[in-house]
């Protein structure tokens, strides 16, 4: 008996609709969140993540309604995030039907938020989202072989001035129960997960790590589980546009002797 590796589809929304696009540029509609949620639930997804990538204050009620509609379709856990800056905004998301919440920029700006959320909802409900980008200057300058990843905030636009490994470890000490790790270098490239980054973080923290960014083929998932030591892997567009069915992906992973929960 060991934990199965998890496959997690992600719904990036503008609050109401699922959208596709890189860095908010050229967003296009990718469907209704509740319809996609129902499909993934039936196909054997292990969890679902729904994010409000706009996270504007006036769209908040719309996003909460989206969470309610998505949760109603699921018999699997739901994580929601985007714009959670306080205990109150987290509570609203959990009351709407989310089992876990993700925090990113707000927790970099005020790390105590992680502890407040963990005390209120339990560590299992607090997912620290880290957007990491390879810092080429330090890698070239130090002469050392060990790469360094910088934490990016505000949708990847700004540097947080933090080392991704150190921030992940600190986040866990503060009370995060899981890390959602996105490689900014791979996100949107479909060239595979960042194995070195995922392994570096996964081997340095005591909580599960969800790898994100760059997935396209079943082989990419297999690599991030075996070489990357990821506990879960997340992807968005390849599932939305039917490039990859979750069922077929899990059958492939099972054939590679990776433990997955096969849908019946």
């Amino acid at each position: 008996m060991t934990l199965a590796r998890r496959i997690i589809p992600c719904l990036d929304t503008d609050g109401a609709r699922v959208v596709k696009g890189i860095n908010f540029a050229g967003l296009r509609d990718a469907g209704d969140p509740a319809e996609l949620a129902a499909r993934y639930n039936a196909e054997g997804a292990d969890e679902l993540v729904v994010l409000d990538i706009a996270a504007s204050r006036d769209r908040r009620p719309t996003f909460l309604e989206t969470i309610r509609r998505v949760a109603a379709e699921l018999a699997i856990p739901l994580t929601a995030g985007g714009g959670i800056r306080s205990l109150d905004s987290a509570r609203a998301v959990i009351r709407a039907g989310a089992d876990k919440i993700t925090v990113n920029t707000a927790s970099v700006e005020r790390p105590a938020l992680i502890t407040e959320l963990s005390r209120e909802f339990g560590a299992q409900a607090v997912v620290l989202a880290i957007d990491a980008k390879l810092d080429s200057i330090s890698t070239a300058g130090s002469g050392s072989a060990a790469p360094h990843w910088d934490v990016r905030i505000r949708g990847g636009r700004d540097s947080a001035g933090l080392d991704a490994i150190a921030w992940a470890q600190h986040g866990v000490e503060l009370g995060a129960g899981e890390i959602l790790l996105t490689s900014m270098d791979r996100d949107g490239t479909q060239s595979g997960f960042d194995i070195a980054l995922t392994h570096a973080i996964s081997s340095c923290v005591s909580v599960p790590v969800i790898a994100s960014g760059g997935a396209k083929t079943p082989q990419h998932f297999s690599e991030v589980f075996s070489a990357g030591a990821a506990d879960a892997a997340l992807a968005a567009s390849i599932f939305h546009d039917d490039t990859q069915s979750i069922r077929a992906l899990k059958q492939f992973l099972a054939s590679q002797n990776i433990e997955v929960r096969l849908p019946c």
Partner: protein
Amino acid sequence: MTSTSTVALIDYGAGNVPSVERALQKLGVTSKRVTRPGELAGVRAIILPGVGHYAAIIRVLDAHNLRAALLDAIKRGVPFLGICLGLQALYSCSEEASSLAGLNLFSGSVRSLPTTAKLPHMGWNRLHILRTSQLLAGVSESDYFYFAHSYAVAPSPGSNEVVATCSHGANFAAVLEQETVFATQFHPEKSGAAGARLLQNFLGLAARMSEPA
């Protein structure tokens, strides 16, 4: 609907109360949220959902005077299902909040899982079924259930209530069943078709148990 056909969901503010409610609705069962002892009178079954910190569940049970009413209902044979913290609350105490007394229906303490494995134990895992169980009818060791916890109960040789274990760094109690008391460390309301099956089994047992002899 009469009160005797009602399933009571103890609402101590846990995040998973709405999920359990929805899961029951999908099985065609309406539940009522209970926050006061008087509301437990005449219910056909009781579900104690829970997720998060052990202290939260125990404090609210005591603050709302639910402890005695809950134990009384269980002793009268009202079918009971504890979920996650709702399982842990049935034991004497927990390392997570050692100053608080549990419901002490079963002896033993809740302890942290070994830190040699990643904690929380989060995700889908399988059961090792120790003996025949009504709650697990139709469930096999190839079915996966969703877990999200860092604390658990180690099964001791004398603990007859444990019908299935799971393993994450160490073996722990995953399913309890003793007469009309049932509990799961995992979340059946989040465990897809296998979880729905288990909830259906509990509702079926509750319906049969509440029939006049």
